[in-house]
């Protein structure tokens, strides 16, 4: 099955969920929950918390699937993952605890090991652009951007993790975001 098939099937299922079709909710869940749990777990590092966030996410989807609008340029899986990711980040911020000092190599490994074909949630063109534009950043800065995205951590925590002053981290990330903007717009 192609990514396009997945995408349109998921979009149709969300349309059915919006009409109150519970079987469709289960279809959406079966197709997406493993990806969404991966995203939440990466941020929260605690399985039961991550599953709580996942539960909230699908309840939100059940109540508000009608808000999904394929015309906005978001794929269904990105829409779902963004809802889950935002809820996970909010959960992380609301708990005072810090994250464990996991070695940063994780972020490198995940980013470098995945085959390019997997970079295709929003279509290969978007993925290729991002890959190219991240590649134009200084490696250390690109690592900071990727880590921030995967872990959902604040500037302060990111600075601790990478052993850099907060001000330096802010300037790395902001400069990177500006360069990414220019590069992605030119694409």
């Amino acid at each position, binding site marked *: 099955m192609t990514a396009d098939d997945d995408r349109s099937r998921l979009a149709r299922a969300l349309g059915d969920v919006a009409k109150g079709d519970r079987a469709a909710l289960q279809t959406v869940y079966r197709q997406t929950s493993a990806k969404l749990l991966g995203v939440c777990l990466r941020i929260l590092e605690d399985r039961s918390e991550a599953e709580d966030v996942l539960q909230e996410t699908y309840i939100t989807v059940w109540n508000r699937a009608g808000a999904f609008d394929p015309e906005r340029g978001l794929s269904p899986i990105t829409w779902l993952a963004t809802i889950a990711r935002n809820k996970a980040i909010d959960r992380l911020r609301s708990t005072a605890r810090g994250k464990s000092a996991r070695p940063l190599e994780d972020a490198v490994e995940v980013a470098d090991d995945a085959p390019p074909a997997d970079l295709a949630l929003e279509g290969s063109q978007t993925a290729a652009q*991002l890959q190219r534009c991240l590649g134009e950043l200084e490696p250390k800065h690109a690592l900071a951007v990727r880590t921030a995205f995967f872990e959902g951590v604040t500037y302060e925590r990111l600075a601790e993790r990478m052993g850099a002053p907060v001000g330096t981290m802010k300037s790395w990330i902001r400069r990177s975001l500006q360069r990414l903007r220019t590069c992605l717009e030119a694409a």
Partner: protein
Amino acid sequence: MSEEPPIGPDEAQDEDLFAAEYALGVLDAAQRAAAEARAAADPAFAEAVLWWTIRFSPLLALVPEVEPSEALWLRIEAATARRSDPPIPPPPEPANDVAPRGLGVWRAWAVGASAVAAAAVLFIGLRFAAPGAGPSAILPSSAGGPTLVATLNLKESGAAAVTVAYDPVRSTIYAAPDAEFSIPKARAAELWLIPADGKPRALGVIDPAKPATMPMPPEFRTLARQKAQVALSIEPAGGSTTGAPTGPVIAGGAFVEI
């Protein structure tokens, strides 16, 4: 050059940077609340967040999948059967009892403007887009000074209890309870503005189950801009009758400009 990020930057480029920082996920809790409030108020900002969300999305493919436990689907099935069967049909309409003032304006925003759809699409389930509150039109665009936002955290757990926004254009206070927030039965939760002089001013009683709007008393408008705090106390049903909090203050937070 200062290290601290401007929360309410003037230039379009800084606006876009703030949107990018939100989409990337590096903002702290107060800044996230501010960004979400801004997205609800400002379609251009919501569009910028959407743009960045799409551009970053290929990274999601790199996160390894993890199968949830079998019990999770059963929990979701039970929760969706209990809470809302059938689900709220689209498009969402603001509930009459939530927004007695300015409803027409909000509804016009909600149905007429495709430009605000980015906020509706992206911010569902978050505090400024609670079901029934008109997700894309909660805060109209500001032209009378910056909007103020406070995230009230519970004293006990530190969890977010309520997000409060003051919209100076409509002189309205908007309060959106978060999921963690509950109060004892037959009691009321009352919001207080605590300006620099430390003297609490009553803003109104809120329902922990749904977002609410209330008028901002004109005499409080300047006070709110003087490093004011917002607090939530437990009061007898109907609210305090003494003009000051009588029960425990369970949550609080500072107003920040966005």
